[in-house]
């Protein structure tokens, strides 16, 4: 079967083992395994399962390890972009991973021609620690008993060892302070149209539900990836019908509909007189661990970087120069992935603060960081 750019397909792994293990037909796992086996790439980045709430990114050239990977986990909010630097890899990724990869590629850290990205639809991810807390308080389940989770029709389900399933609507969870991470609530890229192929279970209905993946081919690299997997007999695809495409669109717009509500709720207007005090107080907690810089998928500076070189505790400035330099330097490329808030040991809402500055600036230049390679960062390179 010929695959063309722009095709919308339904696909699944031919091997029943992979198909049943994977969340929706094992298409992504199979495509990754095929890319590795037929030497389209040298390595593959996957998540290695530790327990229900934890997984670590690994870079592997072993097909078996790819097949044993975890698949999608809502409680592992890692960003894989920085793992792809300097290698010929294929990787799965949420929209923010993909945006991170493109920002890295803009700064010549990643060779985009040799990096294959399989985008995954993403409605949001959750904190592992908060999820455990939520399971005890809201679901009244023992976190150790949980063996699976899924999101269906706006409800979050958890399955226990005895086969019991319990679901609570995500809206209710979020009102109670649990649910998705803050940055996911106002993220407005749910389908990774910037990846090579955009996959997900949105739009898979009827008898294929849960057994196949909807996938849209975004560019030539996507064609190569899929054709490679089809030729090697790893996957089977068919054209998606109009009904499936419409449902996928519907899920997407329902997800995006929530974005405005949360944007308003999270970015409350701070009175003009109190702004300075607010930022000073937030940044005053900083212990200079530098974790936000390490985790940032848009940052490509190494050891010697502006933000650390201009920062000296002896200066005793009223506002941390480290954060100010990062803010000024990254406002044109912040993708809003939320990694910096996640890793902050003193819980400074770094992402939310960054978005307060980055959002208006990026909107003004009609620029969305990490969506296309054609637009260089506007603070660094003059736009025509």
């Amino acid at each position: 079967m010929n695959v063309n750019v722009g095709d919308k397909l339904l696909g699944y792994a031919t091997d029943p083992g992979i198909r049943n293990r994977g969340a929706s037909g094992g298409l992504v796992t199979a495509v990754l395994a095929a890319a590795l086996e037929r030497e389209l790439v040298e390595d593959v980045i996957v998540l290695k399962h530790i327990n229900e709430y934890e997984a670590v990114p690994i870079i592997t050239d072993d097909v078996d390890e790819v097949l044993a990977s975890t698949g999608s986990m809502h409680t592992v909010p890692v960003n894989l972009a920085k793992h792809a630097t300097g290698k010929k890899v294929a990787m799965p990724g949420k929209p923010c991973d993909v945006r991170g990869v493109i920002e890295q590629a803009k700064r010549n850290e990643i060779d985009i021609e040799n990096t294959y990205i399989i985008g995954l639809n993403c409605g949001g991810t959750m904190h592992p620690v908060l999820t455990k807390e939520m399971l005890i308080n809201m679901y009244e389940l023992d976190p150790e008993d949980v063996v699976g989770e899924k999101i269906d029709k706006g409800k979050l389900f958890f399955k226990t060892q005895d086969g019991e399933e319990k679901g609570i609507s995500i809206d209710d969870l979020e009102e109670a302070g649990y649910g998705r991470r803050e940055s996911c609530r106002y993220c407005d890229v749910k389908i990774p149209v910037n990846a090579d192929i955009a996959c997900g279970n949105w739009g898979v209905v009827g008898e294929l539900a849960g057994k196949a993946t909807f996938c849209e081919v975004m560019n030539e690299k996507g064609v190569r990836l899929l054709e490679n997997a089809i030729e090697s007999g790893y996957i089977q695809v068919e054209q998606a019908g109009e009904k499936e495409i419409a449902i996928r669109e519907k899920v997407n717009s329902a997800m995006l509909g929530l974005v405005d509500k949360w944007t308003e709720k999270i970015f409350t207007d701070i009175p003009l007189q109190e702004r300075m005090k607010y930022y000073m107080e937030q940044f005053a907690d900083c212990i200079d661990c530098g974790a936000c810089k390490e985790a940032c998928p848009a940052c490509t500076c190494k050891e010697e970087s502006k933000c650390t070189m201009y920062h000296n505790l002896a200066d005793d400035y009223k506002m941390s120069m480290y954060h100010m330099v990062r803010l000024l330097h990254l406002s044109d490329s912040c993708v809003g992935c939320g990694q910096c808030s996640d890793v902050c040991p003193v819980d400074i809402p770094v992402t939310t603060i960054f978005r307060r500055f980055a959002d208006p600036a990026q909107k003004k230049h009609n620029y969305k960081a990490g969506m296309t390679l054609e637009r260089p960062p506007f603070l660094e390179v003059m736009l025509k």
Partner: protein
Amino acid sequence: MADRKEWEPKIVAFCCNWCSYGGADTAGMGRFQQPASVRVVRVMCSGRIDPLHVFNAFLEGADAVLVTGCHLGDCHYVNGNYKTEVRYQFLEELMIEMGLEPERLHLSWISASEGEKFASFVNKVTTEVKKLGPSPLKPEGVN
């Protein structure tokens, strides 16, 4: 109030080597009266002025920062000042979002012959900043 009258603001002016630094020179040669509040930092091109330099000036105790350069189209390095403009507009919005008065940051294109313009620009900003008082980012112990 007595202190306030004696208080002289500290203003950092970034001047590009080819135009506005010459403008400041011409202002001096032309004997235009101007307050002693300005500290000039010479850079080769206004495109060299990173937003972080501006912010560092504030954190070091500047009450206002002036970004000056050649007129658009006259840049010695072809398009350096267009980049300055983009960064300046971003900084302007950042100042408001941060809660710092936007009157503390100014951009002006001044050519080497416009001594009078430089002097009146400095005069204007000094009066404005005197009204505003010291910057909230000024470190303790700096006047």
